[in-house]
């Protein structure tokens, strides 16, 4: 209890890429990235016991907690493997949009309105496990997420 109160009120000592820094107990991803001078093309991961890959710290303004003695390390962004129309595709971001899914399915498509396509997904993360996508929709991804893309215009 005492330790947590201390964390909330004041700064804590954390390790980023083996260097020591002082950070507020309540901070943001952006602040941590800046603190550790993480290059633009890398991502920051929080060491988690039992998880070799570490937990991704998003480079955004959402409030996160850091604790005394925690370790962070930077590394190449995680590339997710998505299955689109039965084919494995690599995707380096945590989120994907409707048009990006359509482009993954049909890479040779000319740029333009694509609402001819129906998109459905399943095996997604808890925030969006399954559903349909329309123009403008964005979903979070996870390894092994399944997408189907079809121009549903035949009858």
């Amino acid at each position, binding site marked *: 209890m005492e330790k947590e109160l201390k964390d909330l009120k004041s700064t804590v000592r954390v390790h980023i890429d083996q260097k020591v820094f002082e950070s507020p107990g309540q901070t943001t991803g952006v602040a941590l990235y800046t603190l550790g001078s993480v290059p633009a093309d890398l991502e920051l991961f929080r060491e988690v016991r039992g998880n070799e890959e570490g937990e991704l710290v998003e480079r955004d303004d959402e409030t996160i907690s850091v604790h005394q003695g925690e370790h962070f390390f930077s590394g190449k962004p995680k590339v997710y493997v998505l299955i689109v129309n039965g084919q494995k595709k690599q995707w380096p971001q945590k989120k994907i949009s409707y048009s990006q899914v359509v482009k993954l399915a049909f890479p040779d498509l000319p740029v333009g309105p694509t*609402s001819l396509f129906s998109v*459905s997904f399943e095996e997604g993360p808890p925030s969006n496990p399954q559903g349909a996508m329309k123009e403008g929709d964005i979903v979070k991804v996870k390894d092994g997420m399944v997408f*189907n893309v*079809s*121009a*549903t215009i*035949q*009858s």
Partner: protein
Amino acid sequence: MSQRLFNLSPDLKKLRDEGFNLEARSGFLLVRGVPYVNSRREVSRGVLIMELTLAGDVTTKPATHMAHFDGDHPCDEHGAPIAKIRNASEAKSLASDVAIKHSFSAKPQVSGAYADYYEKVTTYVQVISVPALKLDPYITARTFPPIEPDADDLGPFNYVDTSSSRSEIVPISEKLRMSKVTVVGLGGTGSYVLDLLAKTPVGQIHLFDGDRYLQHNAFRSPGAPSLEELNQTPFKVSYLKGIYAKMHRGIVEHPYYLNSANVRELAEADFVFLCMDSGEAKRLVVDSLESFGKPFIDVGLGVSQSDGVLGGIVRVTTSTPEKRDHFRDWVSFKDAAKDNEYKSNIQIADLNCLNAALAVIRWKKFCGFYRDFKAEHHSQYTIEGGLLIHEARKA
């Protein structure tokens, strides 16, 4: 034949639901096709006849336990007349159109009288037919003969929908009685939609399509054309009307495409199924249906190949005067014919059939026939995972 008598008398309705061949004539009930064994030990069929005791339009307790027969005297399996029912054998007319040859008496032993016509008919049929069953175990009086509507019944079918009456859903089926349902596009999905609509009591089914029915169409429409029928290259709407008019009296063919000059013909419909290709004609139809204030369902499916295996999505999108804003989020008017990289014209009969079934089920929810929990206005079925997703739920 009075359908009213048979529908309103529970004992007669039960007999008919079980498949007995019944007729009411001149105050008598005739049960045709009753199997029996004659004195030459041959299996034959006769007519069981009994007077009908009515109160108004419905049956009451039979006044007598007697019955009559038109045929040879029923015998046991050895050819000896069945003694326990034998009463008199005199050929006579009970009415100008009711002739008999034998009379029977089988009084119920315990109660002394039959409670209703179900008990009376089944008891007599049982006694008469048991010997016949010993010679032919599969024979039965329950032959399910086709039932024609009364001459004054102006319903949409050429024969009575006994499927609904047997399963006791006639009042619910009445909810489907729209005057006019239109199907635009009679390709794979449209033809299956027609197949399903023809079995419902809608007043008229209007078919719009300027295409001819060709050989490849045979492989994704219900039923099967003959080579001769294919050789005639009929209009799709004419070929399909030819099949379904056998059952439904209200099918109207429009062997032409919809355009700005004739799209007003859709203004009379109560509901429209859009089963047409994407493109400017579809945009015109959708814009027009919205301005006419019509409810409609749009269907579409897409199949693509990868690694020698097919996958795809089947879609149903609904638009009603109460909810239209979602429609253009999910349906495109882009002319697919112009872009070949991703367009595939693969259509498979089972997918056309599924697309039609999903669309008709959604229409029936609109009618209040099926319970509707989600009021979804857009649904996608993904073949690969079997997932059916619903979107655009009514608030």
